[in-house]
């Protein structure tokens, strides 16, 4: 197979070709490394590329596949890991100066599950610092560019993971999603991203931002890949006290193409003010397709939509202010060069080590938790969260799946978002409530707008009902699905000419 053929495969597609001995693991790793070398000077999807490690692993995994020890669908397939997920002996920075040289002594359970399935880790992907941001521009190591148009952002915070998969620098990637950080960049980059039900994938080894909201999930080229990856990632882990033991871990079963009788609700409140017309058209077109395939589609009022963002920023910032107190210049990370006394050392190290958006959220979090404000803000937000959960419970009493946009627009230009952070926060309006309610959400690519930028659709399911959204997503993706952006295609054909 040519490198172009190899890179055009999905993760499951490559796994199959490796099993059939049409492609070797080494060839697959070489293909992504070649693509990385051509794309990285432009995109900056990676903080660290682990070339040597990947080639060593490729040989070892190939032997185990040949010996019949590794038989899963992802054996030998290269993967990129978001840089807030720990991999032993691999630099893990959270795209922050405060962790610029941090090398974990242990591996996250999610990554461990991948390694056991024969995945080849090729590197760590760029992100908004500590996953705080929606554009990957708050990274201390420079922004990532959108492979569809490098003047635009890839979204965030898992922008590096989504750009890497979009540009065929990796077959799939891990992201993390606290308020939309997998689904929104997946939408902007034209790839498929899944945020599972809270507790489905262990958070052990995920550097915490908002612990009650954080969830690791897959970024991939299509729904089949996401389902196959989820089967590997999902596990009950005693090392994560919020890990849930699920009854059913077979997600690929859902991909029948059949949606007859599936009840789909479209929140009217998601289609109103602020939604770009072209994105709205995509949602309505998807609704029509589902209807033609036998699903029952209705619009309804979800309610409480506008309260999700303020509640989120209170809860996430509060948890962040607590979680990020561990960065104090003692056990790991950056320590200021000059300071006086222990407390001076803490303050100087943190002030110099954290970027502006992280400091903004730690300050807000410290405020809402402070004596005298705790009830008015933090408790109020937790009560709002209960009301939002109730809205979804009512909706899922009537519907199997909620269909809507992932984000109000397609990817904005670089340097346009950080000057007005409140406006940037509003871009997460359709994704954030899903985290507050602990629900699974899937973003799938659904064509492009007039500017040629990908449009994403979001499918939301009730807790533990990933199968419903995977089923609906699978039925829809035949219509559009993953397309390799021109920049990535040009890089491949450029190498073939040489």
């Amino acid at each position: 197979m040519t490198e172009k053929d190899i890179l055009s495969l999905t993760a499951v597609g490559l796994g199959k070709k490796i099993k059939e001995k049409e492609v070797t693991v080494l060839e697959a790793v070489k293909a992504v490394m070649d693509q990385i070398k051509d794309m990285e000077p432009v995109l900056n999807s990676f903080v660290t590329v682990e070339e040597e490690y990947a080639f060593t692993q490729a040989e070892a995994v190939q032997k185990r596949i040949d010996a019949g020890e590794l038989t899963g669908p992802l054996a030998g397939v290269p993967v990129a890991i978001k840089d807030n997920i720990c991999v032993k002996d691999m630099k893990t920075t959270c795209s922050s100066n405060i962790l610029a040289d941090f090398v974990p002594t242990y591996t996250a359970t999610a990554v461990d599950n991948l390694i056991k399935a024969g995945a080849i880790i090729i590197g760590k992907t760029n992100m908004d610092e500590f996953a705080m941001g929606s554009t990957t521009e708050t990274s201390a190591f420079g922004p990532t560019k959108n492979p569809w148009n490098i003047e635009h952002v890839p979204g965030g915070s898992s922008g590096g993971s989504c750009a890497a998969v979009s540009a065929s620098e990796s077959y799939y990637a891990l992201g993390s999603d606290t308020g939309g950080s997998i689904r929104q960049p997946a939408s902007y980059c034209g790839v498929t991203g899944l945020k599972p039900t809270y507790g489905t994938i262990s958070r052990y080894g995920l550097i915490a931002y908002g612990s009650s909201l954080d969830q690791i999930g897959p970024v991939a080229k299509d729904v089949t890949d996401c389902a196959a990856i989820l089967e590997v990632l999902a596990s009950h882990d005693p090392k994560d006290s919020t890990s849930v033991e699920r009854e059913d871990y077979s997600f690929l079963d859902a991909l029948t193409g059949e949606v007859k009788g599936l009840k789909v609700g479209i929140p009217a409140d998601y289609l109103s003010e602020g939604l770009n017309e072209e994105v709205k058209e995509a949602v309505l077109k998807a609704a029509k397709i589902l209807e033609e395939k036998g699903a029952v589609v209705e619009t309804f009022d979800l309610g409480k939509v506008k309260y999700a963002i303020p509640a989120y920023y209170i809860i996430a910032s509060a948890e962040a202010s607590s979680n990020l107190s561990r960065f104090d210049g003692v056990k790991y990370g950056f320590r200021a060069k000059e300071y006086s006394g222990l407390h001076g050392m803490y303050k100087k190290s943190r002030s110099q080590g954290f970027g502006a958006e992280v400091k903004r959220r730690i300050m807000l979090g410290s405020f809402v938790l402070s004596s005298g404000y705790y009830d008015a803000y933090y408790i109020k937000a937790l009560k709002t969260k209960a009301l939002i959960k109730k809205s979804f419970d009512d909706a899922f009493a009537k519907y199997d799946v909620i269909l809507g946009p992932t984000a109000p627009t397609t990817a904005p230009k670089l340097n346009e978002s950080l000057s007005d952070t409140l406006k940037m926060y509003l871009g997460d309006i359709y994704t954030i409530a899903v985290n507050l309610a602990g629900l699974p959400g899937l973003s799938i690519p659904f064509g492009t707008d007039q500017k040629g930028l990908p449009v994403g659709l979001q499918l939301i399911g009730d807790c533990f009902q990933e199968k419903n959204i995977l089923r609906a997503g699978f039925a829809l993706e035949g219509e559009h699905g993953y397309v390799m952006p021109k920049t990535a295609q040009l890089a491949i054909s450029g190498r073939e000419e040489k």
Partner: protein
Amino acid sequence: MAHLIDDDMIEYVGILAKLELSEKEREEAKKDMGRMLDYIDTLNELDTDEVEPMSHVFPIHNVFRDDVVTNGDDRDNILKNAPEKKDGAFKVPKTVE
């Protein structure tokens, strides 16, 4: 209601957050936080008097396990990440006179 965050408040929050902001950062923080709190005030439209605060979406329980050591001695590797170390321990500025 417009929130005015004054210097005392920013100073106090800075102490809680263990952050030392520059003059420019302080001014920005005052503006940012005021604006954010104005926005957060939209929550006051909701009547939540009868609502129980929800910290977790699922009923979660304390997870207990037997107190058995399962990880080995990893001191040297862990200390590799320390900004300063001495005699197999983290080194910090003097804390007691």
